[in-house]
């Protein structure tokens, strides 16, 4: 339904959401174990658990909107969603266009490659094809810092992993946390570079200027932290998918 410009930004305020009775949340649906559809066709994952908790605490129903990495910002700006909980890494560019709440996860870019031909140093990637997904921090990092790596840019996670398995690039770069998860399922591959670039955080994002929801979300994260929600969620949603290389403290933020 059409709304006016000002009303549109207020549309995602806490009171508006409560009045509407539904919160629209942008999530990934192809990124196990954060946001994905399991074999039974059910939307699940670490981000999803958070999303459901947020809705519960707001006392509203959820409406999930599937996004790809490269349209998370526009989903907010075009009022398609109230909040993004889609493995959204905080970067300076993104801070210009959306408002991030308190982070709930740590992350940095990692690189996976076949065990048979492992890539362990960035210098090995020179002049080679590296697979990334459009709009991810991995793409951002390599575009800005490693200009002599050829990037193959895909629209979705499914496509990028498929491409890697088909050997279309020598390696794939993405957030290291789910690369660990992925290699556990695909033992022929290894996280050859565990972490490059700056340490980064993943946080919920709301439309720029949406103070009301931002404040509420910050409080919510603090509250959930106290209640050890993220630890529990880590154990149920993530741990089963990660290899032994990963500890809870690598991923979740407990002390903030």
């Amino acid at each position, binding site marked *: 339904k059409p709304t006016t410009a000002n009303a549109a930004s207020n549309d995602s305020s806490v009171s508006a959401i409560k009045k509407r009775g539904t919160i629209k949340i942008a999530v990934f649906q192809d990124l196990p174990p954060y946001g994905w559809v399991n074999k039974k066709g059910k939307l699940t994952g670490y981000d999803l658990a958070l999303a459901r908790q947020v809705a519960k605490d707001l006392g509203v129903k959820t409406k999930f909107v599937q996004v790809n990495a490269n349209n998370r910002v526009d989903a907010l700006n075009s009022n398609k969603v109230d909040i993004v909980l889609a493995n959204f890494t905080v970067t300076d560019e993104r801070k210009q266009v959306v408002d991030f709440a308190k982070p709930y996860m740590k992350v940095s870019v990692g690189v996976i490659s076949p065990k048979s031909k492992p890539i362990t140093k960035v210098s090995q990637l020179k002049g080679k094809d590296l697979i990334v997904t459009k709009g991810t921090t991995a793409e951002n990092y390599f575009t800005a810092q490693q200009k002599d790596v050829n990037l193959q840019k895909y629209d979705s996670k499914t*496509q990028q992993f498929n*491409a890697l*398995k088909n*050997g279309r690039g020598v390696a794939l770069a993405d957030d290291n946390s789910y690369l660990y998860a992925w290699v556990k399922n695909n033992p022929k591959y290894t996280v050859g570079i565990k972490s490059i670039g700056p340490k980064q955080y993943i946080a919920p994002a709301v439309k720029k200027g949406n103070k009301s929801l931002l404040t509420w979300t910050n409080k919510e994260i603090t509250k959930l932290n106290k209640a050890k929600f993220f630890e529990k969620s880590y154990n149920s949603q993530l741990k089963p998918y990660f290899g032994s290389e990963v500890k809870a403290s690598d991923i979740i933020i407990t002390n903030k």
Partner: protein
Amino acid sequence: MSWQIIQQSLPMFQKGFILTLQMSALGILGAIILGLMCSLCQYFKIPVLKQIVGAYIELSRNTPLLIQLFFIYYGLPGIGLKLSAYTCGIIGLIFLGGSYMAEGFSGGFDGIPNSQIESGKAIGLSQGQLTRYVVFPQGFALSIPALAANIIFLIKETSIFTVIAIPELTNTALDLIGLYYHTNEYLLVLVVGYAIILIPLSIILTWLERRIRYGTFGD
């Protein structure tokens, strides 16, 4: 809308633009050759080949390019056939365009009035001579409008290459949007990019169409 942002993105778009042009050119050329061969198989009713061509045309015309590409690019490696993205793109475009071009040519050949064929026969021309002096020149002229429409169509279809990570125009735009979030600017450049290719081309093709038609039939 910021002119500076547009300007900064132009070198990237230029690469995509050139790639779109190159792949379109190759794909269209291949499609025309494939289409011509298919339509000849049908025109001369060559047994077996004619049936194969018929099946190919139906298959190609009734499935989306996107799925054809997905199947070739992501699916076929599963049974051991791995082709580069560019090869897949070109093959996809030829596979799709071949059937459209074939129908265009066939339409031209079928459009030749029967009386032309008969008067060719009546002066004793053999089948080969009839094809060379009557069917080809007239059929080609008649099929030009369809071919022109197909050329435009195929160029637009290259935008779908974005799904197999070919950095053509559309892919470039989507990528930049994901990186820097200047959606309006990049979409504008994208639309203008296609307009720069398609508008002059469509004018040239219309002109060519008239000329060839006039040269052959005089109307």
